[in-house]
């Protein structure tokens, strides 16, 4: 297994955000994580990426325990993430964001002799933008980008360094309904080409149904259902607590 989570628990005061969560993930899977607000989705992702420490339980990545590693160490071994609110360098250019990230991931941040903004680095960054159909924004500052493009840029930054798993926290939030499918299609298509496994948190069931090959449904810090989208999204408890009757 690529990722293995065993009996993970986390409490915030008297509230249980994770209760004995068992979860595993194989290579190249695309998993949609669903659940109402406060169900424990983001806490689950935060524990995997080291942002929140679990109270008990274990997390294994490629057979190696990573439960107590910090954010940076987890990133270095190949688990990256993007955020609900894009974490980009707003006042820098799109290409500058990509080049700086690339320099860091290639362990090149301490070089005094090599110029950062070389033609080679620009071409590399532009090619990356092309993969995500974002090349028309190459000369823009990040703060000038529309929300959808900013989200995609955050995801591009997250895949630099070739992770084995990427966690996307609500990749389509803040994007108009019309754009959602197009944006998600672009993201998933590009990520699949790179053989990266994906866990994405999503509230839009249409997106989950269309792009996930497995769905994990959270409720009250527990996994309510885990399986193929067509089964889980019709499961009685999932319909009652998460999806709502109109979708089912």
């Amino acid at each position, binding site marked *: 297994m690529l990722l293995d989570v065993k009996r993970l628990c986390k409490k915030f005061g008297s509230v249980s955000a994770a209760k004995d969560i068992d979860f595993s993930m194989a290579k190249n899977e695309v998993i949609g994580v669903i659940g109402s607000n406060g169900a424990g989705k983001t806490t689950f992702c935060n524990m995997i990426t080291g942002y929140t420490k679990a109270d008990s339980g274990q997390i294994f990545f490629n057979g190696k325990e990573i439960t107590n590693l910090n*954010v*940076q160490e987890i*990133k*270095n071994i190949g688990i990256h993430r993007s955020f609900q609110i894009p*974490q*980009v*360098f*707003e*006042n*820098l*250019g799109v*290409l*500058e964001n990509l*080049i*700086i*990230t690339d*320099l*860091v*991931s290639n362990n*090149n*941040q*301490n*070089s*005094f*002799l*090599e*110029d*950062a*903004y*070389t*033609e080679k680095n*620009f071409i590399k960054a532009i090619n990356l933008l092309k993969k995500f159909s974002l090349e028309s924004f190459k*000369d823009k*500052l990040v703060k000038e980008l529309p929300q959808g493009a900013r989200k995609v840029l955050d995801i591009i*930054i997250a895949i630099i360094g070739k992770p084995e798993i990427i966690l996307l926290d609500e990749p389509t939030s803040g994007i108009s309904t019309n754009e959602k499918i197009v944006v998600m299609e672009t993201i998933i298509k590009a990520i699949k080409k790179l053989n990266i496994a994906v866990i994405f948190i999503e509230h839009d069931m249409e997106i989950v149904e269309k792009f996930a090959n497995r769905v994990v449904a959270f409720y009250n810090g527990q996994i309510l259902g885990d399986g193929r989208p067509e089964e889980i999204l019709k499961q009685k408890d999932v319909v009652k607590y998460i999806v709502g009757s109109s979708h089912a």
Partner: protein
Amino acid sequence: MNLKYNENLLLLLFIFFFVVSWFLLPDYALNTVCLSFCNGLVILGLLLLMRLGLVSFGHGMYYCLGGYAVAMSYNFLNIKEALFLILISITVGFLISFALGFFVRRFRGIFFAMLNLALSMILFGIIVKSISLGSTDGFGIKEVYYFGQIIEGEKRLNIYSYSFIIILSGIMMSFVMKYLKSSSGKMLDAIKENEIRSAYLGIAVNRHIHKAYIFSGTLAALGGGLMVLLVGHITPEDTAYWTKSGEFVFVAILSGSLNVFAPLFGALFFEFIRSYALFYFPNTWQMIIGIILIIGIIYLPEGIGSIFKKRRN
């Protein structure tokens, strides 16, 4: 971004222009140019910190250390070669900023600024209370050799000292330019923009702040060392006292941090304005300086350097 834009050529022209100015400008102007370059090196150092979003209110300390390193080496070690004296000031600036960097790199914003000010005032207090360090009178130096050359009986400002200061400043500007263009230099922009995000990306934030601080302190020490070669005298009040550090910050804000030319132009602008304001308005020159800063902030919020800012396509 225009990759063909050649800053190196501009720098060469800049240095060439000032070297040639020796034959064109009157003595008082040459003296002001040289002093501006000495101060400009400190402001160049502040530019590196401003690229990180940090301001030091105590860079007069390094200016003072560099100056005292030269004056003390001259008087106590009898070293009279300018190049060796300057190497000593650079080494002192490097070592002290390296050591203090471990301490100051943990602080941000006003705490970083005030901590540097406090360190500077401690140095000021030590020198003022130490008779062996010249106390408030400081030190003076006499003739200095420039690569073995000396003009007997000539003024302290001569073709050797002038070209030495201008060319050395040019070399430092090219180093800073190279640093800012390098991978390491670009990390400063990222840290200034979002330190938490930078740390998550894997940027060694404290290490980069430390490196920039060392570079900055070393430049300030060099500026102080060159100033002593030019003026021939140093006192703690003219270097380590908080008003001198404040003046450097004033000019740094006036200059902006967009490119390496801005600090030198800012220092030149400030020195000339101050000279003329002192001459024509001896009792109100500070008011003139204040008004100029206000005008600068309103019309050139990114500093003098923004006059030359390239337009983004």
